[in-house]
């Protein structure tokens, strides 16, 4: 589980890094010109999808009620800014966050609701695991460095996962005790 998490983190970092220079969507660039009030006009904003070279007032602003030589005077007051964003980054980020959130929610529901029900059904089996864990606790410093004999003999992946999960649950319980008092 730990390796998987590490890989997920590395993958998402790589993905984000790659996407930052992915192909720009046509809609992802714009030139935004803000023009202050002039004569009868109030404040106006003009947006257009133009490259950075053409991002100035004359290309973007097509004022409705200002004609002729006034247009240039109007344009002198306008402020034009070139902005770009990466919609792919946004999409991927939101999807990644929501999927991680969804997975965590499912796991949380499983841990809090489903697992106790399953445990009650397999009561005998779970009691064995509980007593093994108690024995683990009495050896105060054994956890980090000694591979306990129990899991050395059963090299089963599932049992390793279960053992890791039990240990993690104990750690979380300790944390909960010290934080929530």
């Amino acid at each position, binding site marked *: 589980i*730990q390796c998987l*998490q*590490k890989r997920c*983190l590395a993958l*998402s*970092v790589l993905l*984000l*890094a790659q996407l*930052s*220079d992915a192909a720009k969507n046509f*809609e992802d660039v*714009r030139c935004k010109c*803000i023009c*202050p*009030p*002039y*004569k009868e006009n*109030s*404040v*106006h*904003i*003009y*947006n257009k*999808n133009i490259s950075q070279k053409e991002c100035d007032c004359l290309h973007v602003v097509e004022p409705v009620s200002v004609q002729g030589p006034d247009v240039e005077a109007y344009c002198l*007051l306008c*402020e034009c800014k070139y*902005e*770009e*964003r*990466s*919609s792919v*980054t*946004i*999409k991927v*980020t*939101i*999807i*990644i*966050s929501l999927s*991680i*959130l969804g997975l*965590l*929610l499912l796991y*949380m529901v499983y*841990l*809090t609701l489903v697992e106790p029900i399953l445990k009650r059904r397999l009561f005998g089996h779970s009691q064995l695991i509980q007593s093994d864990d108690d024995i683990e606790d009495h050896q*105060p*410093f054994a956890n*980090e*460095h000694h591979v306990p004999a129990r899991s050395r003999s059963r090299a089963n992946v599932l049992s390793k996962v279960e053992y890791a999960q039990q240990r*993690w649950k104990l*750690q*979380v319980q*300790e*944390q*909960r005790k*010290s*934080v*929530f*008092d």
Partner: protein
Amino acid sequence: MQWRDNQRGLKQFSQLSLLSSWDCSHIPPCPAFFVCFVFLVEMRFCHVAQAGLKFLSSSNPPISASQNARITGTHYTMTNGGSINSSTHLLDLLDEPIPGVGTYDDFHTIDWVREKCKDRERHRRINSKKKESAWEMTKSLYDAWSGWLVVTLTGLASGALAGLIDIAADWMTDLKEGICLSALWYNHEQCCWGSNETTFEERDKCPQWKTWAELIIGQAEGPGSYIMNYIMYIFWALSFAFLAVSLVKVFAPYACGSGIPEIKTILSGFIIRGYLGKWTLMIKTITLVLAVASGLSLGKEGPLVHVACCCGNIFSYLFPKYSTNEAKKREVLSAASAAGVSVAFGAPIGGVLFSLEEVSYYFPLKTLWRSFFAALVAAFVLRSINPFGNSRLVLFYVEYHTPWYLFELFPFILLGVFGGLWGAFFIRANIAWCRRRKSTKFGKYPVLEVIIVAAITAVIAFPNPYTRLNTSELIKELFTDCGPLESSSLCDYRNDMNASKIVDDIPDRPAGIGVYSAIWQLCLALIFKIIMTVFTFGIKVPSGLFIPSMAIGAIAGRIVGIAVEQLAYYHHDWFIFKEWCEVGADCITPGLYAMVGAAACLGGVTRMTVSLVVIVFELTGGLEYIVPLMAAVMTSKWVGDAFGREGIYEAHIRLNGYPFLDAKEEFTHTTLAADVMRPRRNDPPLAVLTQDNMTVDDIENMINETSYNGFPVIMSKESQRLVGFALRRDLTIAIESARKKQEGIVGSSRVCFAQHTPSLPAESPRPLKLRSILDMSPFTVTDHTPMEIVVDIFRKLGLRQCLVTHNGRLLGIITKKDILRHMAQTANQDPASIMFN
């Protein structure tokens, strides 16, 4: 095993050794000496020594296969406190290095001196071997560069995670209002990015963005839609808050809170296992997004520091240089916290200074350069992700170029006083509330508490447009000065100039009705935020303090700014205004007052000085405003210090009972070491071990009966002359492993801490040599040493305990906990609140 046959020869050789384990004070300064020594060893005991040295260098020790798996080389000789002295190593070959010796228990303090010695010896070993072969050379280069690699990876990860958090939090915050039908993943601003609306008032409306009222009941305006929006806002806020607190409670309880007090304690040498782990990282990232989106009065800067430190901790486990040495790991964590602040504020230099001033305990120069590098890498990664579409790192980057005038220093200092007062009030109120939460039954229902706080915040925040906004956006609006284009009600001034004379600097104008109503709403928002932040900081979701304090300060500053501006307009014939302000010219910029107020409030609550000023002027790009910022920050610090010396983080450290010896506090009492040391008059005598008179049973009994973390070793009960110091954890591990691995160790075996075992009768069981776990150079002071010097020694060297001698004989021991209790007593605080060692 081959080397056991050469025991006699090794013993003879060992008398030439000058070194003993951990005795760094005697280590010969010249590496050449060591090389000669090694050469001699190689000459005389070629195959044994080669076995020994190869064993040290971790390639293929000629030992049985069952031990091969455990000995992965430099780890275990280092954890044995292994010095480069060959004689103790050759002796160590007789008893293999004991795995687990040299590591620390949870909630214990590390031994800085031991860790630094270990690192220096490791470095010496690698350097000495680097000329042997190209492979060794590569290994030494890799070792030298591994620090930079860790820091780079940390910066990359911090920047990436900060970008993820920013984008997700933005989207979820807007989810409370409505949803973008064409692309569900866009927030309001991104949804209306390509809108063709041309009028300024309509710029936020676009057909793709639908509020919940529009979706559910089909109306966009009217009281029905207002109530529907209100209900949906509360619903989303509550569900986000509930999700956040449940995730924290089920998966990683350490992810709650700000994280900075605990990181400060960890960096001072405390061990909290799991606080910087993978689950904490993942849960903190996700729940931070949820907590910010639920509209609670909290920020994400403190939790970002925690996230960055988690990344630093995780990456340091990839490199043996950092994973086995707790002191070196803390250098990486210092750099990581700089990266955290750098991505939070877009202020790399401010981040380094924050790490130096607030978070780190020891900050060697090498860490300075590495922190700067980490902060830059993180800022660069965040910029390339470009979360806000404007190539800025923080939402409220504003650029000012308007000048400030000398008379404005007076309102700035007033803002500083306000910041200091608010800081002192907040610290007292928040600590009282947190203490109540800890001590009464109310603290047993954290989920309920979070939901109640979120409900109250949502219900009160929705009607006021200034509190409905995201706090960062509120700060941006307050910082931004009113130009010709602003149309918010804050900028509703009465224009009585001709439209054709609009220039960049709008002259001072009388306020319109919109401004007055905005000021009322801002006052209400101020009171609301002040009260809610007291209850919100410390709840069991990730919560930061920077943004709420800056918001409070910005609101207060803007109100003061508008007041001064109107004063300057209506009374422009007063002396102070006539000097500097011309009629019809732009004189006062209220946005600047907001900035200064924000800095003052943040300084009042955290008591930061230089780092705060640098962060704020990196945020705003306004180098002209350093003097007002410094004036306000200094004033707020002085006013805050008048009420209490601790900032909010030190106060939380004290509340949680962590053993943090603050480097900023001064100890000025005239007590002596004899007054603080243990045992006191009525206590049982000092629990000591003798050099070679105790059996394994005696030691085990002593360990079981007492709860001390370490025992001094003396020569004999009559002479009481000090030999060294042995730690409880090391003794337990050594004895357990000896019982399992060595033959003939029983309960009545003698334990020998000396170099030469005493002569025993023939039928007695094999003695157990534990010299390798003994610290031969414990720090000692005499009983007449003033406590000022003792406290200084503890601070500067990072000691855990110090032995007290009288006329050369061991008298007692002073531990860090004793010092903290003594300091608490002399400051009239409760000494029993120090809980950990």
